[in-house]
C-alpha cells in the first residue's frame, strides 16, 4: 500500500480551474516535491488531500483511507502546514501547541513530553513562552511545522514551507525537513526547482492544473539538458566577441544576454565540450573572459520544454 494514492483528482472552482485529472502515487517514507509556478494548482491539490474541501471528481487515499469516505481518519493521519502559515497570534507557542495536542487527542499525560519533543526538534524551546504574534517569520514557520508534527503523523503535507524566508532560514527549514526521518512520507510544494531537487526523492511537476512529469530530480535535469546553453561574459567589442563565439564548432546561435551589455547566451550542440572551445577561442583572440558557465534552465523554460515534449509525444 502506498502512503498516498491520487486517483483522477479534479477540482473546478466556480470561476476557475483548480486541477485537472491528477493521478500519482507517493511511496511510504518518500519525500515528494510538488513543483509548479504560482496558480498551477499545488495548494488546491493539498487542500483536497487534507479534506479541506472535496474534489469535483476523482478521489485520493491517504494510508488506505479515502478522502471522501473517511475524512476524519485521513486528517488523523496527516500533519499539514498551510501555505499562509495561519497561527493564533494571541497565544504563546506552548499554549498553541497544547491546544492542537488536545485537538489531536494526545492523552493529557503524554502531552507535555510530546510538546517538549517537537519544540526541541524545531529549535523553539527558547521561545516557548513568547506570543506567536511577536515572533519573526522564520520562527512562525517553525511553529507551523511543530504543529504539523505534534501527533507524529505518517504523512506530512507542507505547502511552500520556505516561501518568504531569508536564505539562512531556508537552509534551516530544509535540513529540518530532511531530518524528519525515513519513516515519514512528506509532500512539499515549491515553485523553485533547486529547492525541490535539494530535498526530494522524487518530483511531481504540474502546470496549469495538469500533471506534466513525475520523476527523480536527477532524471528530470538529465532529460531537460538536451541543448546546453552557455552564458559568456567577456570584455571587448561586442561584434568581435560575437564573431569569435560563432566561429566555434558546435555553436548554433549567439544572442545578447539579458543580464548586461557584455553578456552573451550561446546555444550549443549536444555532446561537445563547447565550453572549453569557447574559452580557447576567446583567449586566442585576446578577449578576456569575465565569466563562462552553463545556464540553468528557469522553471518557466522547463515547463515550456516539458509541455512541448508532452504534446509531441501525444502527436506521435
Amino acid at each position: 500500500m502506498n502512503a498516498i494514492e491520487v486517483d483522477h483528482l479534479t477540482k473546478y472552482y466556480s470561476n476557475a480551474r483548480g486541477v485537472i485529472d491528477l493521478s500519482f502515487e507517493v511511496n511510504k517514507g518518500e519525500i515528494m516535491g510538488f513543483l509548479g509556478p504560482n496558480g498551477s494548482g499545488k495548494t488546491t491539490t493539498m487542500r483536497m488531500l487534507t479534506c479541506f474541501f472535496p474534489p469535483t471528481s476523482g478521489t485520493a487515499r491517504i494510508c488506505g483511507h479515502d478522502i471522501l469516505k473517511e475524512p476524519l481518519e485521513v486528517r488523523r493521519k496527516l500533519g499539514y502546514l498551510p501555505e499562509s502559515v495561519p497561527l493564533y497570534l494571541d497565544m504563546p507557542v506552548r499554549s498553541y501547541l497544547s491546544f492542537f495536542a488536545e485537538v489531536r487527542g494526545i492523552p493529557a499525560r503524554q502531552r507535555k513530553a510530546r510538546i517538549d519533543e517537537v519544540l526541541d526538534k524545531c529549535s523553539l524551546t527558547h521561545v516557548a513562552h513568547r506570543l506567536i504574534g511577536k515572533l519573526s517569520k522564520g520562527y512562525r514557520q517553525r511553529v507551523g511545522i511543530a504543529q504539523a508534527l505534534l501527533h507524529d503523523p505518517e504523512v506530512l503535507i507542507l505547502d511552500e514551507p520556505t516561501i518568504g524566508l531569508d536564505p539562512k532560514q531556508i537552509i534551516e527549514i530544509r535540513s529540518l525537513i530532511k531530518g524528519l526521518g525515513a519513516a515519514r512520507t512528506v509532500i512539499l510544494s515549491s515553485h523553485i526547482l533547486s529547492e525541490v531537487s535539494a530535498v526530494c526523492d522524487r518530483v511531481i511537476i504540474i502546470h496549469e492544473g495538469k500533471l506534466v512529469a513525475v520523476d527523480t530530480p536527477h532524471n528530470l535535469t538529465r532529460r531537460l539538458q538536451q541543448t546546453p546553453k552557455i552564458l559568456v561574459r567577456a570584455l571587448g567589442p561586442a561584434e568581435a566577441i560575437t564573431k569569435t563565439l560563432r566561429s566555434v564548432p558546435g555553436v548554433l546561435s549567439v544572442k545578447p544576454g539579458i543580464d548586461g551589455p557584455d553578456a552573451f547566451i550561446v546555444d550549443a550542440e549536444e555532446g561537445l565540450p563547447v565550453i572549453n572551445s569557447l574559452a580557447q577561442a576567446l583567449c586566442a583572440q585576446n578577449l578576456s573572459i569575465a565569466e563562462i558557465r552553463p545556464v540553468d534552465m528557469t522553471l518557466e523554460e522547463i515547463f515550456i520544454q516539458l509541455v512541448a515534449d508532452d504534446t509531441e509525444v501525444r502527436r506521435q
Partner: protein
Amino acid sequence: MNTLTIAKREMGSYFTSLIAYVVTTVFLVMSGYFYYTNMVMFVMFVGSDVKLGLWQQTFYDIRFVTVSVLPLLTMRLFAEEKKMGTIELLFTSPLRDRQIIMGKYLACLAVFAMMLALTMLYPVLLKIVYQLEPAPLAACYLGLFLMGGACIACGIFLSSLTENQVVAAMSTIGVLLLLWFLDWNEGIAGSAVVQVLHQLSFSEHFLNFIRGIIDINDIVYYLSVIAFFLFLTGCSLESRKWRGIK
C-alpha cells in the same frame, strides 16, 4: 471533548484580547445604572409594586444593552478565523464542524453567563434594604439568558458568512433589532399576520419572562431560534465544499 477544547481556547482568547473585560464592564455599568434609576423611580412614584414592576422595568431596559453588546462578542468567532486563515487549521484537524460550532457557541455563552452572574450583585445589595421575592427575578434571568443565547446563535451565524468583523457585528445588530420589532406592524398588516409576527418576534416571548411567567412555549421558542441559527451556521461552513474559501 473536542467541543470543550475549542471552547477553552475561545474563552482564553476573549480574556487575553481584553474584549471580555470591556464588554463586561459596559454591560455591568449600564445594567447597574438601569437598576439604580428604576429603583429610584419606583421608590419615588410607585412605591408599592417593587416586587414585580421593578424587575420588569429593569430587565426591559437591560435587554437593550444585551442586544447591542453581544454582537461584539460574537463578531470575531468565525470572521477572524477566516480572515487569519486559521479556519484552515480547524477544518483540517480531526474535528467535526458541529464540534467547532458548539465549542465557539459555548465559550460565548459562558462569557455571557458570567456577565449575568455579576449583575446578580445588584439585587443582592438591594436585599439589604428591601425584602424581595426571588421567584420573579429568577424568571427574568432565565428569560434574559435564553434571549442572549438566541442573540449569540444569530451572531455566530452572521460571523460565519463574512471575514469582516464589523460587517458581522453590524448585520447581527440589524437582524436582532428586526427580530425585536417584528410585531410593531399592527397598523399595516392584517390581524392574522400580526399574530404570526407576534409569535416570531423576540419581544412577546421575552415579556412573559419578565412578567414572572415561565411558559414552556417561550422556552421552546428561544431554544428553536438557537437551533435554527446554529443549523444555518453549519450550512454556511458546509458551503466551503462547493464554493471553496480562499
